[in-house]
C-alpha cells in the first residue's frame, strides 16, 4: 500500500469557490461587504459568522476522529456551557462566567476521555452517555426555562467585533491558530496520527496514548464549550433544548468533507474548518436562493454520499487500478 498523499485541499477549495459562485449568481450582492459602526457586514461575513460555532466544533472533532474516535456529546456540551454562561452572566463578572462555562466544558471532556481511554469503552457509546444525559443536565441548570441575560460584556462575544471582524470569527481564528501551533508546531500531530493508525504499536513505541487521548477529548469539549458560549451570547439567552442540537453531526460532516478519514490517521485541521465553511455557505446559499430551508437536509445528505463515494476504500482501489492500467 502506498503512502497516501498529504492533504492538498484543492477539491475542498474548489468546492467552496463553486458554492460561493453559485451564491453570487443567486444573489448578486453576495460579495458586497460594508463597514458599519466599526463592524463588517455582508453575506460573506455572515457565512463566516454563522459558521463559527460549527468551525470551532470541527477543530476539536478532527483531532478526536484522527484518534479513530468520535465525540457525539459536543452539542450537549454546547447546551450545558451555554446554560451556565447565560445563568451566571448577570450576577457575575465576565471572567468568572467564562471560567465557569469553560471549566465545566473541561470536566465534560475529562469524563469522555476517561470513559474512552481509561475504561476502554467505544467512543460512540462513551460519548452517547453525555449526549443523552447532557441535555437533561442543561435543562436542570436553566430549570427548563429559556434563560435570558442582558450583560453587555457577554453579549459582545456574540455580537461584538475586533477591528471590524465579528467576535465569533476572531475567536474561531485564534482557536484555530492555537490548535495548529500546538498540534502541528510540535510532534503531537504526528503522535495523534500514529495512534489513530495503530494504537497498540504507538503505545509500544513509547507514545503516552492514554493521556493523549484524554487530552484530545478535553480539547474537543473545550472547543464545544466556546461554541456554546458564542451561541448563547448570540441570542442573549440559553435554550437547553435547541442549543447545539444536531451540531455534532454537522461537525462530523465538516471533518469528513475536510478529507479526514473516519478510520483515523491522517488529518487536517484547516480543511475541517474549511469543511464547516462549505456547509455554512451551502446553508446560506439555500436561504438566499429563496428555497425553503428544508432543502438543507437533502442537500447535506447528497454531499455526505458524494464525499463517501470519494473516500470509499473500494473506489480508491478501483481508481488506482485504472490509473495503473492507463500507465
Amino acid at each position, binding site marked *: 500500500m502506498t503512502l497516501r498523499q498529504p492533504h492538498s485541499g484543492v477539491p475542498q477549495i474548489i468546492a467552496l469557490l463553486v458554492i460561493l459562485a453559485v451564491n453570487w449568481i443567486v444573489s448578486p450582492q453576495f460579495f458586497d461587504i460594508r463597514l458599519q459602526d466599526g463592524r463588517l457586514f455582508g453575506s460573506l461575513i455572515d457565512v463566516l459568522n454563522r459558521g463559527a460555532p460549527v468551525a470551532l466544533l470541527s477543530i476539536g472533532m478532527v483531532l478526536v476522529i484522527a484518534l479513530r474516535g*468520535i465525540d457525539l456529546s459536543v452539542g450537549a456540551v454546547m447546551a450545558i456551557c451555554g446554560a451556565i454562561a447565560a445563568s451566571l452572566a448577570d450576577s457575575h463578572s465576565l471572567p468568572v462566567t467564562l471560567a465557569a462555562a469553560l471549566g465545566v466544558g473541561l470536566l465534560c471532556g475529562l469524563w469522555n476521555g476517561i470513559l474512552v481511554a481509561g*475504561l*476502554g*469503552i*467505544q467512543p*460512540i*457509546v*462513551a460519548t*452517547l*452517555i*453525555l*449526549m*443523552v*444525559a*447532557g*441535555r*437533561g*443536565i442543561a*435543562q*436542570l441548570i436553566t*430549570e*427548563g426555562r429559556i434563560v435570558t441575560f442582558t450583560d453587555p460584556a457577554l453579549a459582545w462575544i456574540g455580537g461584538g467585533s475586533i477591528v471590524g471582524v465579528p467576535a465569533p470569527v476572531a475567536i474561531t481564528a485564534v482557536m484555530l491558530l492555537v490548535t495548529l501551533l500546538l498540534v502541528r508546531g510540535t510532534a503531537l500531530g504526528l503522535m495523534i496520527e500514529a495512534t489513530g493508525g495503530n494504537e497498540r504499536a504507538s503505545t509500544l513505541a513509547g507514545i503516552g496514548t492514554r493521556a493523549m487521548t484524554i487530552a484530545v477529548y478535553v480539547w474537543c469539549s473545550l472547543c464545544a464549550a466556546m461554541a456554546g458560549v458564542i451561541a448563547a451570547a448570540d441570542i442573549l439567552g440559553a435554550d*437547553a433544548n435547541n442549543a447545539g442540537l444536531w451540531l455534532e*453531526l454537522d461537525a*462530523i*460532516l465538516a471533518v*469528513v468533507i475536510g478529507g479526514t478519514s*473516519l*478510520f483515523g490517521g491522517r488529518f487536517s485541521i484547516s480543511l475541517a474548518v474549511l469543511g464547516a465553511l462549505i456547509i455554512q455557505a451551502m446553508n446560506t446559499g439555500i436561504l438566499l436562493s429563496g428555497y*425553503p430551508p*428544508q*432543502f*438543507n*437536509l*437533502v*442537500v*447535506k*445528505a447528497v454531499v*455526505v*454520499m458524494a464525499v*463517501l*463515494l470519494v*473516500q*470509499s*476504500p*473500494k*473506489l480508491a482501489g478501483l481508481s488506482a487500478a485504472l490509473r495503473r492500467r492507463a500507465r
Partner: protein
Amino acid sequence: MRRHLPVLVTTAVFVAMFVACSLQYPNFASTRVVANLLTDNAFLGIVAVGMTFVIISGGIDLSVGSVIGFTTVFLAIAIEHLGWPPAVAFVVVLVLAALFGAGMGAVIHYLEMPPFIVTLAGMFLARGASFLMSTESIAINAPLYAEISSTVIRLPGGGRLTLIAILMLVVVLAGAVLLHATRFGANVYAPGGSRASTEMMGVRVGPATIRIYLLSSLLAGLSGIVFSLYTSSGYSLSAVGVELDAIAAVVIGGTLLTGGYGTVFGTFIGVLIQGLIQTYISFDGSLSSWWAKIATGLLLFAFIAFQQLSVGLSRRGRRMAGVTAP
C-alpha cells in the same frame, strides 16, 4: 447461566424498579399502568427490535427516527390529501422503508463505509424528504384509524391493551424467534463477533448486512405506522432522537455495542425500563421531564460499565484457563 447474566441483571433492575414504584404509589401495580406502558412505548419497542439486530451485527442505524418521521408524513399525505386507502398506504410505505434500508446496507457492505456515517446520511435524507413533503402537522381522520385506536382488549383491573401494544409484543416475539432460532439470526451474530472469521466460515456477509439494515428500516417503517396510529397525525418533526432512545434501550438490555452478543428480550426490558422512568415521573408530578434524560444517561453508564467489567473479567478468566485472548 453466565451467558445470560446481562439480561438477568436488566430484568432484575426492571422488577426492582417496578416494585419500588408500587411501594411508593399503591395504584402503580395495576394492569392499567402496565397496559399504558406497553401502548406508550409500542413504537419504541418495535424500532428497538430492529436496532438490536443492527447492533449485534456490529453496526449502528442512526436513520430510524427520521424513517419514522417520514412514514408518518407519507401516511398523512397519502391518506388525507391523495385519498389512498390506509391499507395500501401502509404497504407502500413499508416497501419504501425496506428499499431504503436495503440501499443503506448495500452502501455499507459494497463501499466498505462505516455504518455510522452511511446511516447518518440516511437520517438527513429521510428527514429532509419528510420536510419537503410537508412541514405542518397533518391530522389523519380516516375511519380505520379511529377503529384501530378504539379496539382494545379489556384486562381485569381496568387495563386496556390496545392493538398497537399487541403488535409490539408480536414484533418482539417474532424478532426473538428470527434472531435466536433461524439461520439468518446466526448470520447476524457472526459478523459482530469477527467479520474476517465469519467470511472464512463461508457466511455471505453481503446479503446478511443488506438484510439486517432492510429489517431495521422495515421495522422503523412499521414503528412509523404505529406512531401515526398513536398520534393520529403525521408530522415531519415527529420521533426526533428516537434512534438514541432505541440504542439506549438495546444497551440497557445487555446487548454488547461491539456486537456479537445480545437478545431481543433484553431490549424489550430496556424499552420498558425507559418507559417506567417516564411513568414514574408523570406519577410523581413534581419531577421535571428532564430527569428522565439524566436517569437514562446514568442507567446507560451503569450498564456499559457493568458490561466492560464482565467482558474484562471473562477475558482474564480465559487467560488464566490457558486460552489465548483474541
